[in-house]
């Protein structure tokens, strides 16, 4: 071989290497531009398939505004009944939030026959006899309304500003300070305040408006009951926020997750032995068991929930069973995989001391798999708390049910906000608890899923 051929050989090899590199680069370039292009094309398809352009028309911005403002504020209704002339005061206009006889908000006062409602910032509504109403709006003037043979007559003329909706049968005035609505049957004045009113006590409780220190250290407000006992009782049975029901609902949701997860683990453990190669010599049994796990997992939790709620009716037990059945499939698969990965050496060691089969399982297998299984179970416990909220919304149980009910009324947004905060806190607490238990029981050496 001469030098020349060698050089030309090297040149060939260099050339082919260069070609290969070029091809690789080309492929990479294609991939780098092709993948984003495919993703983009898919998103464009989704844009049309989901009709996102039409969303703007369908979206109810007024709903969004109501939700946003309602969730952190409340309104107090001052309502005059046009038939009797009586004036009632109620928080959120609900019977449960009604001011008791002889009690009313301190921004309402009397001037002769007139009831004066001060909405703040100079806005004053006067509720006059004979179903007349006057509203002083700073920078605009006084709006007057009275009835003339069943029709509402105002001084607004033909072209009222757009924050007033005036007709013969209904007049609605919305300002920054509040809202006045006049209909044939009643006049309503709303004043808005930030916060969650009546969260601790309703107006009929003697502890309403008292500070914590006043209740704990102050005089006895209710002659029949001790302060702490009475306050705890009134808080727990608060009809507006229903703290006891909410606590029960949270408890039910956690109960569903607990029963479902640990029940599934108890059912799945013996079955997993049947599905693991090392412990189940019969191929047919193994195969059948695995197909059962696959089937149970494939029939989604949604379908199990529907089927079970037909048989057991709404409630926490149905949710627990739905979680139990779905997770039996998942656990069965995970456990049998863990059992197949058991180290033979420990079993050998135990059997060398003359251990019987049952003792071999107890001291050779169980100590190896328990940390792995516990870690998986605890991980599912946390995620099942979330599932239990969702399943509760479908079957009717737990905090999920309260949440859907509150959303469906479309007005108790402060309660919706309260429940959402509670759900998030609940899930985070379970997350923490399951992590803590995992560290406590396993010592943190095992892999976290």
């Amino acid at each position, binding site marked *: 071989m001469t030098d020349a051929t060698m050089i030309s050989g090297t040149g060939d090899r260099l050339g082919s290497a260069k070609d290969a590199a070029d091809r690789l680069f080309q492929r990479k370039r294609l991939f780098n531009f092709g993948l984003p292009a495919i993703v983009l094309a898919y998103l464009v398809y989704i844009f049309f398939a989901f009709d996102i352009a039409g969303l703007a028309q369908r979206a109810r911005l007024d709903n969004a505004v109501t*939700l946003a403002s309602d969730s952190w504020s409340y309104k107090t209704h001052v309502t005059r009944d046009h038939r009797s002339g009586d004036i009632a005061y109620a928080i959120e206009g609900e019977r449960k939030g009604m001011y008791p006889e002889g009690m009313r908000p301190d921004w309402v006062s009397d001037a002769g026959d007139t009831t004066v409602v001060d909405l703040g910032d100079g806005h004053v509504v006067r509720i006059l006899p004979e179903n007349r109403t006057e509203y002083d709006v700073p920078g605009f003037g006084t709006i007057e309304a009275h009835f003339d043979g069943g029709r509402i007559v105002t001084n607004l003329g033909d072209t009222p500003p757009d924050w007033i909706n005036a007709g013969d049968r209904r007049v609605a005035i919305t300002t920054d300070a509040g809202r006045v609505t006049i209909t044939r049957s009643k006049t309503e004045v709303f004043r808005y305040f930030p916060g969650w009113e009546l969260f601790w006590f309703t107006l009929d409780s003697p502890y309403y408006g008292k500070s914590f220190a006043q209740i704990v250290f102050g005089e006895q407000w209710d002659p029949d009951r001790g302060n702490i006992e009475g306050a705890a009782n009134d808080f727990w049975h608060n009809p507006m926020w229903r703290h006891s029901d909410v606590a029960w609902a949270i408890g039910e949701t956690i109960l569903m997750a607990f029963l479902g997860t640990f029940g599934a683990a108890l059912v799945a453990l013996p079955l997993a032995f049947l599905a693991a190669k090392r412990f189940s010599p019969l191929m047919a049994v193994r195969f059948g068991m695995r197909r059962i796990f696959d089937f149970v997992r494939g029939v*989604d939790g*949604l379908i199990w929930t529907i089927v079970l709620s037909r048989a*057991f009716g709404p409630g926490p037990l149905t949710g627990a069973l739905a979680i139990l059945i779905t997770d039996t499939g998942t656990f069965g698969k995970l456990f049998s995989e863990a059992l197949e990965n058991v180290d033979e050496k420990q079993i050998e060691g135990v059997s060398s001391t003359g251990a019987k089969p049952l003792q071999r399982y107890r001291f050779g297998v169980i100590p190896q798999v328990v940390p792995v299984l516990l870690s998986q179970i605890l991980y599912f416990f946390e995620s099942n708390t979330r599932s239990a909220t969702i399943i509760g919304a479908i079957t009717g149980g737990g905090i999920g049910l309260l949440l859907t009910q509150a959303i469906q009324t479309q007005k108790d947004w402060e309660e919706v906000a309260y429940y959402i905060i509670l759900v998030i806190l609940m899930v*985070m607490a379970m997350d923490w608890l399951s992590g803590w238990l995992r560290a406590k029981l396993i010592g943190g050496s095992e892999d976290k899923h």
Partner: protein
Amino acid sequence: MTDISHPAAAAAPQRIADLQSGYMELARKKRLYGGLTLVVFVLLLVSGFMVADSRNAGGFWDGLANVGDYPAAVISEAWEKRAELPANLVKFFPALVETLNIAAVSTLVGAMIGLVLSFLSTRGLARWPRLVPLFRRIMDIMRAVPEIVIALVLIFMLGGGPVPAMIAIAFHTAGALGKLFSEVAENADLKPVDGLSSVGANWSQRMILGVVPQVAPNFLSYSLLRFEINIRASAILGFVGAGGLGYELRNAMSWGPGQFDAAAAIFILLFAAIVLFDQISSRYRNRLTEGGHA
């Protein structure tokens, strides 16, 4: 103690006996604690079951006998009308596509947000190292919110349809994947990042060119697993009004008997889709993490 010349020899059996009794004592104590834990656990389980049973509309033992009724009714009616099954499958196929689309888009969007969040909350990679705890808490909260909460609120604001479900699932997915991604990214080799920063690459270039190629297989594997989970979530959210297969299922169910053939077709589609995508994703996941640091 008669043998004074060898005190150790005499003490040895005594020490062994001490050790043994000490060991037995410890073992007994451990067994006692283990037994107590087990008793408490069993008590919790049994009392929990009784509470759940008493608060349920129908009792457990009564209901147990009826578990088969609904599936039997659906199957028998579907069997009578088996000629219509293909037509029903075709009819509900678009709903299945919508359910799958919701799952796919929310996984895609959630994974992209999770990617950014994970880099922002990983020590060593974070854009603003001081804000790492903040981004972690944000991800914790995103993970804690059940999809149904966001979906229901958004349905009120945006009306029914796939978009509320998509946003709800994407939100949760971003938090869940962000945490898993960040665990992977923690183990990424920092040398490529250092190399890139030495040639003046900015943060996003360092992440995309230095970190993403290292972690891409694991990220893809987690995303595929999430896609499986999201198909189920998207079916469930449909049931509360967010479109897709779940929505059709609720309609078919509220019509009651006479429409069980439709319900059966939907059950079959959902089951088939879940099993199919489980298989596909587990095959690809095995390939992605083979030999990698799973």
